[in-house]
């Protein structure tokens, strides 16, 4: 915890310093009748730097927590995140309906080891319901992909 807090503090310090400096460099500090667009961002950067410095140098620390869990839990978090990212990245190619169904099949099967028929039934039902609510009922145009046109 001590270390993660320190690393976060250093990161925040760098980001906020860049934030404040960027404000001064690229935007006007003072408009023609009052503070300009750089005014508040600059001060926010300064305040954040102070907070980060406080965290970097303070002595009291709460109970320790590790940043990433170990073993199976870590694998699960990484896989869930990876599959979700892939789903989002492929949405344009696969389209909402096909993409959703595939995403659900992969993730439900991975997490639960349910029988294939159940996994596929859930995926189809959810993809269908999702389409029904958002596209048919609420008229949100979803990505269609290359396999499906409405």
């Amino acid at each position: 915890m001590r270390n993660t807090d320190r690393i976060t503090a250093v990161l925040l310090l760098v980001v906020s310093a860049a934030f404040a400096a960027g404000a001064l460099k690229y935007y006007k500090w003072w408009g023609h009748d009052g503070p300009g667009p750089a005014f508040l961002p600059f001060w926010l950067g300064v305040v954040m730097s102070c907070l980060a410095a406080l965290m970097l140098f303070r002595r009291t620390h709460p109970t320790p927590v590790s940043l990433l869990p170990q073993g199976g839990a870590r694998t699960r978090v990484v896989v869930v995140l990876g599959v979700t990212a892939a789903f989002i990245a492929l949405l344009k190619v696969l389209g909402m309906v096909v993409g959703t169904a595939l995403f659900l099949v992969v993730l439900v099967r991975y997490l639960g080891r349910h029988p294939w028929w159940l996994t596929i039934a859930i995926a189809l039902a959810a993809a269908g319901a999702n389409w029904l609510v958002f596209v048919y009922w609420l008229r949100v145009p979803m990505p269609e992909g290359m396999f499906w046109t409405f």
Partner: protein
Amino acid sequence: MMAVAGVLVGMLIGALPGVGPPSGVALLLPLTFGMEPTSGIIMLAAMYAGTMYGGTITSVLINTPGESASVVTCLDGYQMALQGRAGPALGIAAIGSFIAGTIGVVLLMLVSPLLARWALSFGPPETFALMLLGLTTVTMLAGEDPLKGYISMVLGLMLAMVGFDIISGDARYGFGVPELIDGIDFLPVAIGLFGLGEVLAGAEEKTAQMKISLRLREVLPSLADWAQSKWAIARGTVLGFLVGVLPGAGPTVASFLSYTVEKKVSKTPERFGKGAIEGVAAPESANNAAATAAMVPMLTLGIPGSATTAIMLGGLMMWGLRPGPLLFEKNPQFVWGLIASQYIANVMLLIASTALIPLFVRALRIPYSILMPLIILFCVTGAYSLKNNLFDVGQMLVFGVIGYFMKKLGYSPAALVLALVLGPLAERALRQSLIISDAGLGIFFTRPISAVLMVLALAAVAVPLVKWGRTLFSRT
């Protein structure tokens, strides 16, 4: 009709483990986009009420509070469930919520117009001071570590700076990305932090299945239960409303306070923590009264009292409604519609919660392995349907990861979202004030209302600092 659907969907979402009211409302907000404003708002209000109660169901049955406001309910609610009295616990919570919610709506009707009229005299300095007070108090109460709370808040404000500057029209921090010119929308951020972040945190554990069975008969509390908790409900309602009206305090503080009060006035305080029905009735009434009361500052001043109301506020702004004192003059039909729908939502909640609890309990039996992918799907579609672009979805994913780490490291996503929503408004108020005063900071302290609010806001910052200084002093 919309109210009915909203309550049901809200309860269902709220009853899912790991999805509390802020995530519930954030996830459901996109559902209202396709509707006309009035039905959208009614549905939103109903979902708000529904998710609040949904959180109670998980507190009592599986000892997992949906959000901080129902943490206290776990203490005695889960104990009651272990003793086989889950039914009466949920029943008294529903009845208490109904009574508190109804009285809350009546008080909301009486207090809001007065407050709005008073707030009409507010200039930019008062608005800024009020927002500062809202931000600092929410942050102060957000978590165990005030420093991390403030870091989350300032981070939210920094994110709010991205996009067009309202006064000069300059685009800031866009890095040439066209999607960033309009700024960072709060909804993908909220869905990411609350929805996806929670799911990722939940992915760590293989949650055990609960076996629970309930029937309608078992949901109704007995006469003895009722006699035992009627004053607890009354006290909880009054206390809850008073606390809820304060900007920044909200349902969580209300529920903790009322639990403490109940324990103090009880003749048998030793029963608390071991399944005392008053320990469920009082905080549940209080958090519902406070949830209704939190609408008062949100509607009249534009300052939300909790993460959930912050998301509601963002939702209202998407409809082009700017909450604040003028709302009562410009859109009276909307305000009264919202208030009326709150009332209907309360009635619906009572009926739905007593009649359908057994059904909702089944939702808890769906294994997490199926639930989790479905929640992620909801996050993705929700983020997408805001503006129909994938950039928002990517943003949601990034904030999901940030939310996961924030949760693990003890930062406060609620403070971040609140700051993101209030940021642009606060900046405008600040700069207008400084233009009026010719860049003197004195303007915030020479006007009486603004001065009082500023002092309170600064006190909220000073308290944790003083405490921190003291621990440092005692160590050396």
